[in-house]
C-alpha cells in the first residue's frame, strides 16, 4: 500500500510540477522521491500528522517525554527541599514592617512552623520548630487540603496567599514579553537572513559589529538611554509604566506606557536572533543540498526560502519556544527601571521586605519555569527535525 501511495505521489508531482524530475537528496533519511516542501500545505500537514502517530519513533518520543517529566519532578523536589531548608532557617522579623505580630505567630502555629509555649504567668512564648518537623507539617498541610499550604504574605499584602499575589503580578510581565517577542522575532530573523545572504559584504560586517556591541552592552544601559531620551528629554512617551491599579493591562494607555521597556528589551533580543539566524543560515546555505536545489532549477529566492531557511529554523525554533516559556519570569532589571508591576518587581519586593513565603513561592516558580523551558526546548528539537532522536541510545 505504501508503494501505491508513493507512485501516486510521483504522478501528482509530475502533473503539477513537470519541471522537477530530479531526485531529492535533502530528504535522504526517507526513501521518498518527492520534496516534502513542494506538496500542498494541507496535504503535507495531514500526511505529517498521520505519519507522526504511526511512527515508531513517536512512541519513543512519548516515552522520552515521560522520562524527562519524571526526572524534572525529581529535580524539582530536590531543589525545593534545598530552598525550603535555606529559606526556613532565615531569621523571622515579626518586629519590622508587620501589621500584627500576634496574628503572625498564631498563623505560624497553625501551620506547624512555631510552637506555642504558655508560661506560668499566662504569657505565651513562640519557639521556632526544627526544620525537619516544619517540613513534615508542610507536607501534611499540602495533602490535608488546607487553604494556604504555601503560607501567607505577612508584609507585601497582609495575609493573602503567595499564589494570589503572584497571579496578580503575572499579567503585566506576560503582556510586555509577548510584545517583545512579537517585535523582536520577525525583525531578528529578517536581519539574520539579510546578513546571511550578504555574507562578507560591507553591510554584513557593519551589522556584525553593531550586533556584537548590542549583545555586549548590558540591557539596563539601553534602558537608561531610552528612558532619558524618549521619556525625559523629548517627552514623546511616558517614562514609567502606568500603574496597573489605574488602567487595565490590556488598554492602549497601558501599552503606550510600556513601549519604552519593550524597546529596551527588544534590542538584545533582536541582536540575539539575528546573530543566531545568520550563523545557522550561512551554514545551511553552503550545504550540498542547496547546490542540488539550484541545479534542479530553483531560483535563489526559492531555494533559500524553501530549503535553507526552513532547515536553519531547526535550532532557532526551540530557542523561540524557550523564550516563550521564560516570558513568565520576566526581566528584573527592566521592570525595576520602568516601574513595571510584574513578577520581577514582586521578587525584589519580597527580598527587600523579607516576606519569606512570597520569596519562596516566586523562587520556586522561577525554577519550575526554568526546568519546563529546558524540557520543551529539548523535545521541540525532535519534533521540528525528526532526524534528531532525543534520548535515543547509541
Amino acid at each position, binding site marked *: 500500500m505504501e508503494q501505491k501511495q508513493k507512485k501516486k505521489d510521483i504522478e501528482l508531482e509530475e502533473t503539477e510540477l513537470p519541471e522537477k524530475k530530479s531526485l531529492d537528496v535533502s530528504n535522504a533519511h526517507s526513501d521518498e522521491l518527492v520534496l516534502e516542501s513542494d506538496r500542498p500545505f494541507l496535504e503535507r500537514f495531514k500526511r505529517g500528522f498521520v505519519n507522526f502517530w504511526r511512527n515508531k519513533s513517536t512512541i519513543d518520543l512519548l516515552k522520552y517525554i515521560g522520562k524527562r517529566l519524571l526526572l524534572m519532578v525529581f529535580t524539582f523536589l530536590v531543589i525545593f527541599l534545598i530552598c525550603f531548608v535555606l*529559606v526556613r532557617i532565615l531569621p523571622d522579623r515579626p518586629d519590622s514592617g508587620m501589621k500584627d505580630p500576634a496574628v503572625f505567630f498564631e498563623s505560624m502555629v497553625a501551620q506547624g512552623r512555631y510552637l506555642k509555649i504558655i508560661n506560668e504567668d499566662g504569657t505565651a512564648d513562640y519557639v521556632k520548630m526544627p526544620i525537619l518537623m516544619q517540613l513534615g507539617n508542610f507536607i501534611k498541610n499540602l495533602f490535608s487540603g488546607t487553604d494556604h499550604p504555601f503560607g501567607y504574605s505577612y508584609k507585601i499584602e497582609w495575609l493573602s496567599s503567595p499564589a494570589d499575589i503572584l497571579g496578580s503580578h503575572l499579567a503585566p510581565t506576560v503582556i510586555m514579553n509577548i510584545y517583545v517577542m512579537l517585535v523582536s522575532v520577525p525583525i531578528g530573523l529578517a536581519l539574520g537572513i539579510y546578513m546571511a545572504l550578504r555574507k562578507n559584504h560591507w553591510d554584513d560586517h557593519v551589522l556584525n559589529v553593531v550586533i*556584537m556591541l548590542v549583545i*555586549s552592552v548590558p540591557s539596563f544601559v539601553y534602558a537608561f538611554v531610552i528612558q532619558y531620551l524618549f*521619556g525625559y528629554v523629548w517627552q514623546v512617551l511616558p517614562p514609567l509604566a502606568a500603574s496597573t491599579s489605574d488602567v487595565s493591562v490590556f488598554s492602549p494607555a497601558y501599552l503606550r506606557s510600556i513601549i519604552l521597556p519593550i524597546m529596551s528589551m527588544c534590542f538584545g533580543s533582536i541582536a540575539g536572533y539575528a546573530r543566531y539566524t545568520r550563523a545557522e543560515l550561512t551554514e545551511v546555505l553552503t550545504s550540498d543540498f542547496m547546490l542540488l536545489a539550484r541545479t534542479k532549477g530553483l531560483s535563489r529566492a526559492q531555494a533559500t526560502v524553501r530549503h535553507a531557511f526552513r532547515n536553519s529554523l531547526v535550532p532557532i525554533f526551540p530557542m523561540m519556544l524557550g523564550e516563550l516559556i521564560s516570558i513568565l519570569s520576566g526581566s528584573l*532589571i527592566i521592570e*525595576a527601571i520602568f516601574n513595571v508591576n510584574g513578577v520581577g518587581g514582586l521578587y525584589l519586593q519580597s*527580598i527587600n521586605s523579607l516576606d519569606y513565603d512570597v520569596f519562596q513561592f516566586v523562587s520556586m516558580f522561577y*525554577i519550575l519555569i526554568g526546568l519546563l523551558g529546558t524540557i520543551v526546548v529539548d523535545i521541540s528539537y525532535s519534533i521540528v527535525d525528526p532526524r534528531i532522536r532525543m534520548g535515543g541510545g547509541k
Partner: protein
Amino acid sequence: MEKEVMTFNTDSAMDIKAIPSELFHKKKDNENLHDQAFETKPVSYLKGAMMRFAKNKASIIAAIIIALLALYAIIVPLVSPMAHVNSTEYPNGFSDPFFRYALPYNPVNKAMNLGWWDGTDVKTGYNNMDLEILELDDSNYEPLVENIDTVKETVAGRIQTHYKLRVDSYAIGCREINVTKEEYSKLVEYEKEKGIYHTDKGIMKPLRDYTTYLQNYRAELTEKLHEAEDQGITTTSLTETTIGNIIDYMTIYYNQNQRIWYQLGSRESTPYNFSQNSYVIRHDANNKPISIYAMDGDEYVYAQENYGKITVRVDYYDYFTFHNGFEPRYFFGCNSAGQDLFLRLAQGTGFSLLLGIGISLINFIIGLIWGAISGYYGGTADLIMERVTDIISCIPSLIILSICAIQFTGNADLRAAIGSSGIIILSFFVAFVYSGWVGTAGTTRMQFYRFKGQEYVLASRTLGAKDPRLIFRHILPNAAGTLTTSSVLMIPGIIFAESSLSFLGIVNFTTSGLVSVGSLLNEGSAAGLKENPFMLLFPSLVISLLMICFNLFGNGLRDAFNTTLRGSED
C-alpha cells in the same frame, strides 16, 4: 585519476623549464647533498596562539582598553587627594554635602568654552527674582554664566518673564559656618598672607544681621496693618498672626539662602495683601538693593563668637580650597552626599574587576579539579558527580545570593566579625562560586574525555606514569587553551551579574564603604535619571566598555587558541 597526474606532471615540467638557467650549478664531487635544517624557529602552541592573537586588532584594542580601565582603577585612588583626607572624619570616603550633585567639570571644555561638561547647567523656568539673586551674589565666583533666552508670556492677564540661564553649579555662593578658634586664626593668617584680609576678594565675607532687619520689618508691617485699619480695610492676609508667620518664614528663608545679603520684603500683590512665602528684593532710591550686613560702627563684622566657636560667612568654594588643600572640582560630578564620582567610579571599577577576576579564578580552580576527576575517572564517579552538578546548576544563583544577603545581614555575630563590607564580599563569593564553576567543570570534563583515550596517553601509561602525571602533564596542557578562554569569558558575566544585582539593591552597599559599578548605578537611579543623568552616564559607560572589551578579548583568545584556524587568515 590518470589524467590528473599527467596534467600535474606537465605543469611541473613547465615550471622547471621556467626557472632561469643561471640558478643551476653543477654538483661538485666533494659536495654532500642533504636536507637543510629549518632556518626558522619552530612555532610552539603558545607562541602560535600569541601570533594569532596579535593579528586580531579588535582584541588587542580591547585588551588595551581593559588595561587602561585597570590603570584608572589603580592610579586614581592612589593620587586623588580626596582619597587621602582624614578617614576618621569621613568613614565612607570624603564628602562635602554643600557640593551635592555638582555637575561634571572638565577643565579642557571650560578653557575651550564649549558649553558642555564644564560644571554648568542650562535650565529654564527662572523668574525675575531668581535672576536677580544670581546677579547679586556676593561671593568670589559668578554663578550666572550666561543668560540664554528670555521668554515673556501672559498668564492670567499678567506678563510673566522666564529666563533660560546657564548657571555654574560650583559657584554655590557664601555659607555661614562655625569654625574653631585655631582654624579662625589660621584663616586670618592665610588671608593676610594673600593680602585679601577683609577685602572684596577675601574668603571671609561680612556677616548678615537679618534678625535686626526682620525686627524692623515686623514694625513696618505692623504699621501697615494700623494704616489699613485706619482706612477701614481688613484683609485676611494682614493680621497680627500673619505678620508673625511672615517674619518666621523669612527667618527660615534667610537661614537657608545664605547668599542673600540684602533686604527682602513680602510680595504685596494687591495693596495690604501680603504673601507669606513669596518675597521681593527691596530697592533704595537708586534702585540698588539695601544691604543687611552686620555693622559695627562703620566697619563690617566678619566674625562672631558663638558658644566657643566662631561664626564666619565664607565664600565656600575658596574656603573649601583653603580647608582641604585642593579645589572642589569634580571630573565626573558629585553624588547626593557630595562625593567625587571620578574617585568612586575608579574604586568601583577596581572592586568589580577584582571581584570578577577573583571569582573566575576560584571557579576555574574548582571546576578544573572537579571536571578533571569526573572526566578522567569516568564511570560511577562521573555519573554521581554529573548529577550533583545538575542539581546545583538548577538553582539560580540569584536565589542563593538573596538568601545569603538576608542571612548574613541578619547575623549580628558575622557582622561584628567581618564588618558589613565583608558580608557583601562573602555574599557575592558564595553566590557566584556556588554554581559558577559548573561551566568550567563541564568543559574540563569534555576535554578529558577527548584526550584520555589518545595514543600518547596510553604510551605514557604504558611507561608507568601515574594518574596525577597523566592528568597534569599530558592531558591538561592540551586543554589549557579552551579552559583559559572559558574562564576569561566568565569574567564579564560575573561583572555583569554583580552590577545588576547591586543595581537592583539585592545586595545593599550603602553602609559598607564599598563601591561597585552596580552600586553607583543604584545611587544614580535613586538620584533620578531626569534630574542627574550624569550620575548614571559614567558608570554605564564604564560597565559597557568593560563588557564589550572582555567579550572581544575573550573571543580573540578563543580564536587564538583554536588550532584549526592556524594559517587560515594568511
